[in-house]
Structure formats: structure tokens, C-alpha cells
């Protein structure tokens, strides 16, 4: 596959996703909408009771917002987009028409990844932009982050959401169903993973959890130590394992299934 073909195919994937208006609207609601509500509620709380509630912005406010950006509502948009990218061709009955072009099935899978990541980063970028704006607008005299911290936060948000998006693309390609993928990953992200992370009886096994890895490298102010201690090497291995395993399973299924 030449660079031109790859570029055109990635552009086509992006086109398919960005034109899915309902899905894009929901992704924006989950990412930017939830972030706007989060900042507004914190700002109102602080305005009504400055002693009882910290400012919505500032360095500590950014740390709270990163929880939203990396663990809770915003990653759900990455899941929506990834699931659509992974299963959309099958759902539309278009997969077989792409296969009969003679293009390799692995290539058909691989271009889904950058296509989905591009849209995820646009949506998450809007939410991150709101968070950064809120950090400075609602600091109320509290210390504000420097440019280096904002840059680290941006990189972390991109990594966390990008990883989850890739996992969603791989899983959706594997199971061939958007609803099943979205349900499974939202359940995992919002319920199973946090519960498992708090289960001390699991010990170091919890290092395989993505949330554990991302907690370890989350930039900015920390409220206490991460639940599990991980080395940087363990963090890298965990993130790589999730992305590679999901991608390999998705590629395998795309290459072997009857179209």
C-alpha cells in the first residue's frame, strides 16, 4: 500500500466517522458537555461557598478535570468513536464491498485506527480546551499551571483516550457489534476497572489495568499516592499490551471472517 493510498483511505475513514452526526453529537456531549457542566458546577459551588469548596480552576482544579478527561466521561466519547470505526463497515453492509476491491483486509483494519484517533483527538481536544480555559478563568487567585504542565496534561489526555479508542476499534472489529462493544467498554471503564483497582486482594495483578497505568503517570497535583505503585516500564508494558492485543485481535478477525 503506497502512502497516497494510505492517506486516501485514512481520509475516507475520517469522512465516514465525522459525517455520523448523531454519534459525533453524543461524543461531544460526553466530552465537552460533561466538562462544561463539571466546571460550571465547581465554579458555582466555589462562588456560593469559597471556604468549603476550592476554586474550579487553578492547578488543583486542573487535576480534577484530568480525572474527567482520562478516566470518566471524556473516554466514553473515545469508546463511541472507536466502536463506530471498528464495526461501522459491517453494520452498513459495506465491508464486503471494500473486500472485493482486492485491498488487503489487514489494511482495511489498520486504516480504521488513525481515522478513529483523528476524530477522537478533535473531540477530546475541545474538552481539553475547555478544561484549560476553566483552569485559568476560574482560578480565583489559586496557583495556575505553567505551560509545561499543560503540555504534559495534553499528552496524557491524548495517550489515555487514544489507547481506549484503539482498544474500542480492536474490540468492535473482533465482535462486529457496536452496541456490544460500547456496553462492554463503558461497563469496564466506569464500573469494573475502578472496582478491580480498589481490590487490594488482587495485588500486583492490578498492574494490567489501564486505569492503574494512567493513574501512575497522571501529571499535576496528586491527592495522595496512586492506588497501585508501578514502574514506568510496567506502565509502558501495560499500555502497549492493551493496544497491541486489541489491534491484533481486531486485525485477525477482519482478515479471517467471511465477508
Amino acid at each position, binding site marked *: 500500500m503506497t502512502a497516497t493510498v494510505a492517506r486516501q483511505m485514512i481520509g*475516507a475513514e475520517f*469522512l465516514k466517522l465525522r459525517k455520523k452526526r448523531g454519534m459525533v453529537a453524543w461524543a461531544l456531549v460526553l466530552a465537552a458537555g460533561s466538562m462544561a457542566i463539571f466546571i460550571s458546577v465547581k465554579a458555582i459551588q466555589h462562588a456560593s461557598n469559597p471556604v468549603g469548596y476550592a476554586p474550579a480552576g487553578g492547578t488543583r482544579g486542573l487535576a480534577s478535570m484530568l480525572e474527567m478527561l482520562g478516566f470518566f466521561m471524556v473516554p466514553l466519547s473515545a469508546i463511541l468513536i472507536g466502536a463506530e470505526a471498528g464495526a461501522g463497515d459491517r453494520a*452498513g453492509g459495506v465491508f464486503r*464491498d471494500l473486500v472485493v*476491491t*482486492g485491498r488487503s483486509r489487514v489494511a482495511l483494519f489498520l486504516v480504521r485506527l488513525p481515522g478513529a484517533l483523528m476524530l477522537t483527538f478533535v473531540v477530546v481536544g475541545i474538552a481539553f480546551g475547555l478544561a484549560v480555559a476553566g483552569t485559568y478563568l476560574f482560578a480565583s487567585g489559586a496557583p495556575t499551571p505553567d505551560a509545561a504542565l499543560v503540555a504534559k496534561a495534553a499528552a496524557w489526555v491524548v495517550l489515555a483516550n487514544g489507547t481506549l479508542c484503539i482498544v474500542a476499534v480492536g474490540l468492535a472489529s473482533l465482535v462486529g457489534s457496536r452496541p456490544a462493544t460500547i456496553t462492554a467498554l463503558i461497563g469496564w471503564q466506569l464500573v469494573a476497572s475502578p472496582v478491580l483497582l480498589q481490590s487490594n486482594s488482587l495485588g500486583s495483578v492490578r498492574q494490567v489495568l489501564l486505569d492503574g497505568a494512567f493513574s501512575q503517570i497522571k501529571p499535576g497535583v496528586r491527592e495522595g499516592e496512586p492506588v497501585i505503585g508501578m514502574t514506568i516500564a510496567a506502565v509502558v508494558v501495560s499500555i502497549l499490551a492493551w493496544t497491541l492485543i486489541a489491534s491484533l485481535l481486531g486485525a485477525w478477525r477482519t482478515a479471517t471472517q*467471511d*465477508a
Partner: protein
Amino acid sequence: MNVIETEGLTKSFGERVAVDRVDLAVPSGCAFGFLGPNGAGKTTLIRMLLGLTHASHGSMSLLGLPVPQRRAEALRRVGAIVEQPGFHDHLSGRENLRVVAAARGPEARPRIGPALERVGLADRADERVKAYSLGMRQRLGVARCLLADPKLLILDEPTNGLDPGGILEFRLMIRDLVEQEGRTVFLSSHLLDEVEKTCDHAAIVDHGRIVTQGTIAELASDGRSELIVGCDDPSLALAVLDGFGGIRDARRSDEGLRLTLAPGRDGAAAVNSLLVEAGVSVHRLEPVRRSLEERFLEITTRLGVEA
């Protein structure tokens, strides 16, 4: 040159054999009908040819290239619609073509406009496919095939669900693709009338096996030539023709006489001459035109009896 060739092609799903040792040869530059009842194995064979599913046994080639070994190369000049053409309903017709053109390669993108023009969808190309009628979706499917500048188009039941006007339009388009543009069209259908009116060649398939193949005329006649003779004295005519070597069978009918001529013989003139010389007044001498439908029913009835 044959654009499709299969040899002993077989596909089994567990114990059930969907395609059974099929030997098929599709000559280039024609419309070839692949005719059979629902469930006969037509779509399964097409899916194997296109690499959508694996063959259990046998070999096949597209445009002279063995598949699946050189599948990607072969499919570069093949366009196909398998069952109903699928589209992203939220995209416009033009955008749907852009998606497939991207997979086809850079040379396909400039063909989007001409392909839409060719199928008569240029005016509606920027509307979302969700708003397209079934006929428009079928035409968009053909436009998608044309992005490959195909030597071979494989169309699986392309007229399913179309109204009579849509069927006629589709038939004319297929004939144009063959006659004006020199492409080969492989058309699977369970509609006998459709194949007879659209195609030059056909194969009849049933229970996963090719029963017979050839030109439409050959298939319809089964090599037999029949003649209706109208005359003033059928009894005398039968007696005159008794023993004439150019006739395999002769019997009385409502029209007068119905003769089955011996294979390879053009006996009409000889029959006329014999009867006139014997004093029989002949007022009608008409070859019997059998339709593919009659032949198809004959074949499937026979198969039913054998089964």
C-alpha cells in the same frame, strides 16, 4: 479468453454441499447469466470467486489470474455487487464512492464523476443515500463497480426488488456495458425472463451443480429443432414423412403436425418439398421457438423426479 473459469469448485458447510464440483467457463465480452432457483448456490459461488469465503475444493481464475493466489491483482479490474449493495446511509452517493475509490487506489478517484454520470445519478449524487430508492441504490452499486474500470462485472441478483421500469432500465444499462463498452457482465438471477432478455450465454445451476451451459439459444432449444406444419391433410402428410431421415419424431397436434427434426439437419425445406410433391397443400411451416423458461422447467422437473 474466458474471464471466469472454475474447475471442480466445491463449497461445503459441514455436511451440506452448497456448491458441488462446478466447472464453469465464462467467455469475455458477453452478458453471462448464472441462472438457478433460490438456494441453488449462486451467491456462494460468487462469494468464492471474490474471496469473500474460502473454497473447500477446486480451482478458479478471474481474468486469467488464479484466485485466491493472485486475488488482489485480479480484483483490480473486477467490479461486483454481492446480494444487495451496501452503503453508508449517512453519506451521500458521491461520498460513498469516495470511500471505495480510496481503497481502489488513486486512479479510481477521477472516475467518480463519470461513473455517476454513466448510471444517471449525477444530479442526486450529493444527497444522502438514506433518501435513495432501491433502483437508485442498485445504480449506485453499478457506479461503484465502474470505479475499477472493470473488464468484468459480477452482479448478484441485481434486479431484485426493482419495479418493471427499473428492471428495463437496468437491462438496457447492462447491454450497453457489454455492447458499447466491451465489458463482460456475469449476472446471477433466479428470474428466467431476465436472463433470457439480458444475456447471450447462461449456465443453469441447481442443488449446487451446473446442469447445463451454453448460449441462450442452445440452452432453450437443447439442440432440438421443432417444426409446426399446417396442411390440408395431416394423415397423408404423416404417411409421406414416415421414413424420412431428416425427422426424428412426427405427431398430430392442434396446429396440424409437430415435427422434431434430426440434429444438425435443416429439414424444413425438405419437408415442404416432400409434402408438396405428394400433393399435400402446406399453408404453414413454422419453427417452434422454445423459451428458456420451458427448458429450465424441463430441467428442474427432471431433477425433481430424479431426487
